[in-house]
């Protein structure tokens, strides 16, 4: 390669980061005209390579290869939360949830595996843990969720009472605890208050654990302690539970204790494996705590969050209402009207990508269109879904079509939806990582 052909940006990056030399070499080899074009169009940095960030990076490159895109992600591999409840219940291998970043590199995305530690909106710079600095014209932050404190629930307690709300080792740990649980112990599931990642997720988990118990630990049941009095797809879940798990009878495999009936957890004690509500205490050898949530740590550090803990954004571009030239997508964004789901993150990423491409080309962003499609499993052969098409109407995200699976759908439809769930997963993961 010839140093003469390096443009200023490539040079700064190369000299700034020995670790990145290997990575940038590819770009340098293709330098010359391509790099000059990239210089003209601008640079995008994306933090977080999941359902939101990876899609934004790919779709920007697909739309305009003249834009340089760098994805900064802390983990070598990504584990999908959607479908990870199957792993918890023991009928799916965690390896099927695992993805990498080779596919994005084929789109010309520069991938940096290192945690981003600082965002400076004034100098438009992202710094990674190793001290490397990345300049951006536009930054997209897709950091997912972080947890709000629960009394008694610290890093050590997470290992005894897993949350399994970030997929990966936590998912495997919860499955191990479920498998090791004494027959007769309850599986205690502490659900979070709204808003949180994957609104039907805790209830799908309860269903699939009940499916496991029915076969393997018939003396046990699931107890959901919930601060809320209603939840996502509730009538469909409860009808399915009645059919599959005796819900509502004294032999029910699932007890749901809503906030109004003492479901709100006050504190936990990992040493004695006890959960305390205002009214009672629950002990078990298997306790799953899904804590209250807020935007991922980097968003909070960069002061992209407001008092709610989430990031206020413009709905047509997902640009932060707090910091110019920074966009926030996925669960961390306050996209009021859209659920915090993987599909919504995918959809937000595409709206954001189109807006960023337009803005870097000196054009006005177009009108957005958003979709959510979300499946939940009540057993391995019983699926339900919610779907929605959304538009921006007078500044608000409004659902213009969609709805839930029919309440009276026949069994073969539930079976088809269970199969579609797996295909949904394979397609959206290919859309994200290939």
């Amino acid at each position, binding site marked *: 390669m010839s140093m003469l052909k390096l443009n200023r940006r490539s040079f700064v990056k190369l000299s700034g980061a020995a670790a990145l030399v290997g990575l940038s070499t590819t770009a340098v080899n293709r330098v010359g005209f391509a790099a000059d074009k990239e210089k003209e169009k601008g640079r995008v940095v994306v933090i977080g390579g999941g359902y939101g960030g990876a899609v934004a990076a790919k779709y920007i490159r697909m739309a305009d290869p003249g834009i340089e895109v760098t994805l900064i992600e802390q983990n070598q591999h990504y584990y999908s939360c959607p479908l990870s409840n199957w792993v918890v219940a023991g009928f799916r291998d965690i390896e099927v949830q695992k993805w990498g970043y080779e596919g994005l590199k084929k789109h010309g995305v520069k991938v940096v595996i290192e945690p981003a530690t600082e965002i400076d909106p004034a100098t438009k710079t992202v710094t990674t843990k190793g001290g490397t600095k990345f300049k951006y014209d536009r930054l997209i932050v897709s950091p997912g969720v972080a947890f709000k404190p629960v009394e008694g629930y610290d890093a050590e307690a997470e290992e005894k009472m897993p949350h399994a709300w970030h997929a990966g080792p936590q998912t495997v740990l919860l499955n191990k605890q479920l498998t090791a649980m004494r027959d007769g112990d309850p599986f205690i599931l502490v659900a979070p208050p709204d808003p949180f990642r994957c609104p039907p997720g805790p209830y799908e988990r309860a269903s699939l654990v009940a499916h496991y118990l029915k076969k393997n630990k018939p003396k046990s049941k699931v107890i959901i302690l919930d601060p809320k009095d209603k939840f996502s797809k509730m009538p469909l879940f409860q009808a399915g539970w009645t059919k599959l798990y005796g819900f509502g009878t004294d032999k029910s495999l699932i007890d749901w204790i809503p906030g109004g009936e003492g479901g709100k957890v006050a504190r936990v004690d990992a040493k004695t494996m006890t959960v305390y509500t205002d009214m009672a205490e629950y002990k078990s050898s298997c306790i799953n705590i899904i804590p209250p949530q807020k935007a991922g740590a980097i968003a909070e550090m960069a002061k992209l969050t407001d008092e709610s803990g989430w990031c206020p954004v413009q709905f047509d571009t997902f640009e932060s209402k707090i910091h110019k030239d920074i966009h926030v997508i996925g669960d961390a964004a306050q996209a009021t009207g859209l659920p915090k789901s993987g599909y919504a993150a995918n959809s937000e990423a595409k709206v954001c990508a189109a807006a960023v491409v*337009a803005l870097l080309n000196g054009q006005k962003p*177009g009108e957005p269109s958003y979709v959510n499609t979300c499946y939940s499993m009540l057993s391995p052969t019983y699926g339900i879904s919610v779907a929605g098409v959304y538009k921006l109407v007078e500044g608000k995200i409004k659902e213009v079509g*969609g709805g839930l699976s029919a309440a009276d759908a026949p069994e073969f439809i539930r079976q088809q939806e269970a199969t579609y769930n797996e*295909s949904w997963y394979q397609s959206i993961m290919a859309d994200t990582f290939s």
Partner: protein
Amino acid sequence: MHRKKIQTMGLISGLVAGGLLCATAANAESGPTAAMLANTCAGCHGTDGISGGPAMPTIAGMPANHIKTLMKEFKDGSRPSTIMGRLAKGYSDEEVALIADFFSKKKWADAESHANSKLATAVDQAQAGKGKKLTASAKCDKCHEDDGKAQDENTPRLAGQWLDYLLFKMQDYKNTALKVPQEKKMEKAMEKLSAEDLAAIAHFYASKH
């Protein structure tokens, strides 16, 4: 006039590889662009309509009018579905036209060529052989010409489609209670075919590429 302008823009964007960019460049006052609308489908139907999930059909390269017909039937409820009926209600006819145009200009890719092909139900050659004979005796090949590779405004391509999807659809067609919209001659042919015959036909079309 207004609608025509939108369609022209969709056409231009479809012709250029970077459809998203060009569509974005179009007038923002006229609603979401073709690429904006169509890219939201990709979560299930795959990037550019090339599905990565064996039960989801690839829609890349499908004739625009065929997509429009299906969406209309999903929307008015005449075509049974699990989820498409709900989603189709979110789009105007003009938007469906843009989406249809977008996917019709994308290149078809056989399921077999997809990185996820190993996830699909494997094609059984004996079944496919039986299926081939049935497509002749039941006269499937009168419309689904060239081993299902041919397509036109009323006939979708079947060759190289995901087998799991084809098997699902065959079940739906056989389930007369669902009343899947279809040509009279196809309905008649279906009556004479057993569920096993239809599965064999699905294997045959999936085996072709």
